[in-house]
């Protein structure tokens, strides 16, 4: 497989000015020397907290932003000086409700963007109809976008991103605002695109989504790359840990603290739901903690108890907590 995205020591700074008389310039490092490569046909995930530099990285790759320093190549071309050779071969989908002409219908939006991608009239008509069907908007095709719900707008964004049949599709939190059915539809589309040999670079805050879809994942923190590997290998980083999840009635706060004091327990987190609570206890693999935990919870109604596998989310949180 050839490399279609090549990023080496990439930096991007934003300069802001403050004050009227004594203007002060502030430099913010959004991306701070990251390097990675993406192979053709790969689904590559970029994970990180808000402000980690994911969107800025994508914007440099789609030729929207200039890098401050470093190498940023897509399909073998520099994104800043050879952008014209890249633009008709890629596309991107940004999450949220922006990026469409609200006073036009869904069909008119797609037809116009087809024109901007130099797609012929007949081809544009057939692609528009096919893609609208794919994203489940056929029946709303001729309705003004300003009347659309958040989820429908997001579906139309996805349709726009697929219009030019791109070799590489960049997706920045594409499932934001989508209902479960819409999110599943998008995941199915990503799988189909992968089968067709398309390359996808994806950012998401949903770890299960990244785990399910991505061949490889890069984790960013404050503009720096902190890990890059397959989801399976990343999970091995937390192999020495095990997790138990207990659904229970709301326990006394001090009980959670007592559980954290048990030898071998690394962390106990209590999350309150509408009906009950979820207590997640992370502990060193092999440590015998279950009896001690149940002893502390004696008198509290336990609804369920399970010993689950380490997820990508556990690894992600561990990694970022370790860094902070």
């Amino acid at each position, binding site marked *: 497989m050839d490399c279609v995205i090549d990023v080496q020591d990439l930096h991007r700074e*934003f300069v802001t000015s403050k004050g009227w008389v004594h203007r002060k310039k502030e430099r913010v490092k959004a991306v701070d020397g990251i390097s990675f490569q993406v192979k053709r046909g790969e689904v590559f995930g970029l994970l990180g907290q808000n402000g980690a530099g994911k969107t800025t990285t994508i914007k440099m790759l789609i030729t*929207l*932003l*200039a890098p401050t320093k470093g190498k940023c190549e897509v399909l073998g071309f520099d994104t800043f000086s050879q952008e014209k050779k890249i*633009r008709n071969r890629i596309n991107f989908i*940004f999450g949220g409700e922006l990026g469409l*002409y609200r006073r036009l219908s869904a069909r008119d939006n797609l037809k116009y963007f087809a*024109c*901007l991608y130099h797609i012929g009239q007949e081809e544009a008509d057939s692609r528009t109809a096919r893609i609208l069907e794919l994203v489940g908007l056929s029946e709303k095709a001729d309705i003004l976008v300003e009347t659309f719900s958040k989820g429908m707008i997001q579906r139309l964004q996805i349709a726009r991103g697929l219009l030019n049949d791109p070799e590489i599709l960049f997706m920045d939190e594409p499932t934001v605002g989508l209902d479960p059915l819409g999110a599943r539809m998008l995941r199915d589309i990503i799988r189909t695109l992968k089968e067709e040999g398309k390359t996808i670079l994806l950012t998401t805050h949903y770890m299960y989504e990244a785990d399910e879809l991505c061949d490889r994942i890069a984790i960013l923190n404050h503009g720096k790359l902190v890990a890059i590997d397959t989801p399976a290998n990343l999970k091995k980083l937390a192999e020495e840990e095990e997790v138990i999840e207990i659904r229970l009635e709301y326990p006394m706060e001090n009980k959670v603290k007592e559980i954290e004091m048990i030898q071998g327990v690394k962390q106990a987190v209590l999350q309150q739901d509408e009906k009950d609570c979820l207590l997640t206890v992370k502990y060193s693999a092999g440590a015998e903690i279950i009896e001690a935990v149940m002893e502390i919870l004696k008198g509290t109604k336990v609804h369920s108890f399970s010993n689950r596998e380490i997820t990508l989310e556990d690894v992600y949180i561990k990694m970022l907590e370790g860094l902070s």
Partner: protein
Amino acid sequence: MKGLKVIYYTALLQMKCSFARPMFRFCLIANPIVNTVLLYEMFKSSDRGDFVSYVVLGAGLMALWSCICFSSAGDINRERYSGTLSLIYVAPAGFSAIITGKVIGNTILSMVTFILSFLTAKILFRIDIKVSHPYCLLLAIFCAVVSFSMISIIVAYLLTLSRKTQLYMNCIEIPVILVCGFVFPAEILPLWVRPISYILSPTWAVKLIRLSVSEVWNIKEFYTVLCILIAVTAVYLVIGYFLLKLIESQVRVLATLEVS
């Protein structure tokens, strides 16, 4: 050919989107009517024999310029805030073709202001504007559309560099109307202002239109003004070309295509 298609479709889309906006409809419909009434009242006691041309053409031109300011220039901001500016910027069609299409669409639609100001003058004040040289008027209007479009393109390019588009847009509207002699001859402006008038193509476009409806026909002056207008517009074209090259890289360095 592909570029022309993009310009054509963008112009159509622009007309559709602009007309759907209440503010644009106000500029397009109410503005020329109000301007015609106000200018008529201001000019009716003047001793100018050609005051009708100042009323009708002045009102139309003022409204045309307002439409251009609030659409061609304002569109950059609208596109920025609706998240489409970045999409059209990275589209293979090219930013220059898209901006050209938008400006042409708006300018063509804005020509309605002339018809409205003519009709207002005719219906309310029963005044007719006599066109002594209709072909020259058509040529002058065509040149005016090209020159207004060219200046709008330059303004639109410049406004991609800043997020304070709204402010600049409001700042340029009235000064251009005054300096370019939309409602009075530019020659009555103070000497130090005139160089500014002469480097702005609308000054020559306005003068050309006015000459073509003038009862005193001076063919030499008409062609002189036409040549100056073509020359100034050509200079704008060259400036626009280099500006585009500069701006295409600068907006990516300064990250001004979006709002965060």
